[in-house]
């Protein structure tokens, strides 16, 4: 075959020890393939596996069998069959998830993330890109650059893949035309000039026929670059992360006995040496590295990528989630930053919603405080948005419940990349990259005053608290709230009702009834309730508040203020029969939309503090039951 020794098969006279040390000393390249649906990604990967002789005899036999009636190359094989894994995918003939493939040559081991082309799978592509150093971007020579080419390039740039190979495939179908190749290459370079890629190459190939995969094709004598596989074998992609600032996210506290306390983790960047002065990013407590422990013996130093256990020279408070750094080189430590986010869930992202944020080994509750704009992944145009849907990309600001240590993603992928997790269903909702920390968070602290809530409570003679009613329209929330308020005021207590309708006439009159507006509606009311309770009042909030996430948010905004969630559980048939404001009738006639219970969901509380049964109990009974729970 070629001079390139693609297959890792030792010949009989090879010195086995030499060969083995060659195998163990290989470098690693992780790349992803992307491009439009019919550009031939699976065929290309199948071809790479085939040409590096990684297809085994039994696989080859079943492959030839499966390839009948399909589009095959000179070898009689449909290479795409090698990689389209899931049964559902084979039936539909498309790749719907990220699949990982492995092959190696004598120089390198390759891990390939094969990602889908359709727009609805942007999230899968972002996933594949997150662990890749290089991207093969496929283009059909007959079609040139497509919308997908642009979208994928943008996502590569967003996730920070720095090395791109433009694989101009199906070059055989344009008669191996140099002009076609040169035009596509030029078009792409013009398009990608601002995307920040560090290396770029264009290669004319036919994945089906094997042109310019392993060896230079005689059918493209005009092409002076390297064929694809040699290019992948030789490109240097490792940014030397050991040259970056030292970051060590603590994963696990290693404490086998009272005499040993170490901090286990992977060096994210930089170098740690025995004797180095380090700081805990959160507490700024200093210490020195006393030893770097591994099962293979202590090390003098640990570089980025190594998983080790650090022992410090003194007892300082360090736990999982802490980031160890060198002094004078600490990361941002604050609770607000701006980020780009790829949304990956069916449920949209709304500003004001509370999520769990995981960054490195830190996990904290966090809120999207602002959605600045979303970016059209096809045109790169930015536009205002109230929410982000599946596969959309947006620029957001995030506030975390407590400060965390982070770096801009462009400086450090490990301490700058994060995911958002749904707090109820635990789904991974989005992938974010920190753009920069927001300075104001560091400088703006809460002013504390001498007259606090406790002082006001003493003055009022009762504890301030928030009673949050939830339930359908017409369930009886306001009736019960009204009874309670009358009774409290009669007893000389300071109470106030925040009513959904009333607040919408004033504070929230700019808000409609879309999901996004409802989220903001509740956020504002929760903040007002908190302020009122802080002023010493018993606050009765009577809002439909149909979404669990917002009720949870309201509880979190309340902080340490006593918070009681009262669910007035009245079946919709009963509410609709009552219909005190005639709203159900209107909703049924289609005159109002987004009406809870009709065409907008009500998520019943799973753990309300109190459930009142509005169909069977009288308002007076419900008010009495609630009053007893207030503990006044």
């Amino acid at each position, binding site marked *: 075959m070629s001079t390139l020794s693609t297959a890792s*098969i*030792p010949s009989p006279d090879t010195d*086995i*020890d030499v060969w*083995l040390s060659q*195998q*163990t000393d290989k*470098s*690693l390249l992780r790349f992803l393939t992307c491009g439009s649906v019919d550009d031939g990604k699976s065929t290309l990967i199948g071809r790479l596996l085939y040409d590096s002789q990684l297809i*085994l*005899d*039994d*696989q080859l036999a079943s492959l030839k069998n499966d390839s009948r009636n399909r589009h095959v190359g000179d070898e009689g094989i449909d290479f795409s069959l090698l*990689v389209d*894994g*899931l*049964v*559902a995918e084979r039936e539909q003939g498309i790749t719907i*998830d990220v*699949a*990982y*493939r492995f092959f190696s040559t004598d120089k390198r*081991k390759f891990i390939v993330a094969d990602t889908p082309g359709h727009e609805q799978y942007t999230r*899968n592509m972002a*996933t594949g890109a*997150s662990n890749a150093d290089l991207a093969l971007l496929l283009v059909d020579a007959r079609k040139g650059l497509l919308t997908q080419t642009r979208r994928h390039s943008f996502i590569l740039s967003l996730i920070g893949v720095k090395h791109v190979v433009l694989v101009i495939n199906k070059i055989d179908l344009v008669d191996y035309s140099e002009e076609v190749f040169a035009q596509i290459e030029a078009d792409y370079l013009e398009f990608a000039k601002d995307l920040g890629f560090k290396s770029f190459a264009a290669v004319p190939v036919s994945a089906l026929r094997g042109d310019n995969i392993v060896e230079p094709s005689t059918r493209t004598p005009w092409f002076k670059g390297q064929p694809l596989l040699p290019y992948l074998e030789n490109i*240097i992609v*490792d940014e*030397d*992360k*050991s040259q970056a600032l030292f970051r060590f996210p603590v*994963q*696990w506290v*290693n404490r*086998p006995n009272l005499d040993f306390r*170490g901090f*286990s*983790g*992977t060096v994210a960047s930089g*170098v740690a040496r025995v004797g180095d002065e380090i700081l805990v990013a959160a507490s700024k407590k200093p210490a020195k590295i006393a030893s770097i422990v*591994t*099962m293979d013996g202590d090390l003098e130093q640990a*570089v980025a*990528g*190594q*998983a080790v*256990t650090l022992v410090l020279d003194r007892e300082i408070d360090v736990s999982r989630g802490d980031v160890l750094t060198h002094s004078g080189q600490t990361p941002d430590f604050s609770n607000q930053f701006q980020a780009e986010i790829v949304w*990956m869930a069916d449920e949209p992202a709304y500003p004001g919603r509370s999520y*769990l944020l*995981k960054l490195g*080994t830190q996990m904290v509750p966090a809120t999207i405080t602002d959605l600045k704009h979303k970016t059209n992944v096809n045109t790169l145009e930015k536009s205002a948005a109230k929410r982000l849907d599946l596969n959309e990309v947006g620029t957001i600001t995030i506030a975390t419940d407590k400060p965390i240590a982070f770096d801009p993603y462009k400086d450090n*992928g*490990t301490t700058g*990349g994060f*995911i958002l*997790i749904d707090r109820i*269903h*635990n789904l*991974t909702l989005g*992938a974010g990259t920190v753009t920069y920390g927001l300075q104001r968070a560091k400088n703006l602290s809460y002013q504390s005053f001498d007259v606090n809530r406790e002082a006001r409570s003493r003055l009022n003679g009762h504890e301030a608290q928030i009673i949050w009613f939830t339930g359908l329209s017409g369930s009886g929330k306001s009736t019960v709230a009204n009874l309670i308020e009358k009774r409290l005021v009669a007893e000389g207590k300071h109470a106030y009702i925040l009513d959904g309708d009333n607040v919408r006439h004033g504070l929230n009159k700019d808000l409609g009834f879309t999901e996004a507006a409802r989220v903001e509606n509740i956020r504002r009311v929760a903040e007002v309730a908190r302020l009122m309770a802080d002023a010493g009042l018993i606050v009765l909030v009577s809002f439909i508040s149909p979404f669990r996430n917002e009720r949870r948010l309201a509880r979190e905004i309340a902080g340490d203020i006593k918070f009681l969630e009262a669910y007035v559980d009245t079946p919709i048939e009963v509410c609709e029969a009552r219909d005190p404001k005639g709203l159900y009738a209107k909703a049924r006639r289609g005159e109002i939309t987004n009406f809870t219970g009709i065409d907008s969901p009500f998520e019943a509380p799973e753990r309300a503090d109190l459930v009142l049964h509005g169909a069977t109990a009288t308002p007076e009974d419900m008010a009495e039951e609630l009053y007893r729970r207030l503990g006044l």
Partner: protein
Amino acid sequence: MSPSSASLTHLARLEAESIEIFREVAASFERPVMMYSIGKDSSVLLHLARKAFYPSRIPFPLLHIDTTWKFGEMIAFRDKMAEDFGFELRVHTNPDGVANNVNPFDHGSSRYTDIMKTQALRQALGAGKYDAAIGGARRDEEKSRAKERIFSHRNANHAWDPKNQRPELWRVYNTRLAPGESMRVFPLSNWTELDIWTYIYSEQIPIVPLYFAKPRPVVERSGTMIMVDDERFRLEDGETPREEIVRFRTLGCYPLTGAIPSNAATLPEIIMEMQASRTSEREGRLIDSDQAGSMEKKKQEGYF
């Protein structure tokens, strides 16, 4: 020497990635367990777990699903490892299967496997209330495995939903679970069979001697050489085991595991032979060849 992360070899990177995964499990779950199947991948898994937590002991138990039909040498090796390395070993056998004398001869490989492996596993995971089960599966083994996450979510019935997997970004693993749900975790996801062998070689990791060729008593069944490991093996009329120099590329229940003729008696010889041979690894296991997509189906049902 100027330190450089670029100089880390692919094995060093794979090792570090696996160690990181182990630590993430220990830090994020309340009741993790590691599946220990005694094969070469389990040996690598055990070695990596020891490295991940050193000098601590492995902070979770190892679970072996004993079908009662494993090779005798596997059981001996398992017990020696537990003693040498001081980990907590838990062994589970499906008591219903034992009561009904379920075996590969009378019940066929697929029913036997379902009762003694899949169901036994579900019983053990349920009884142990494990919220994370670490396994040695690799993505290069089989097409449906190629798409599985490193942290792979299971619903309360231990089932996998391949179309609804959580996206897995960078090395930021979503370890959150609802009550009753669990996670399967695969630290060897990015290893290939060759990586496993070269790592065993360079780290001198102990493996079951069945991987090395030596004369063993075998009979031939539908073109596959089966080792007669104990007196329970049902010989057909007039059948006598013959001595052949064989070894095993994969280990499981001895009546279902094919031996290959081989003279490879050392690690380098095994690796040489493997590289020169042209048959994929799971070919020796009978359970995969039933139907297209059979592994994917088994996984949806809770098989590892």
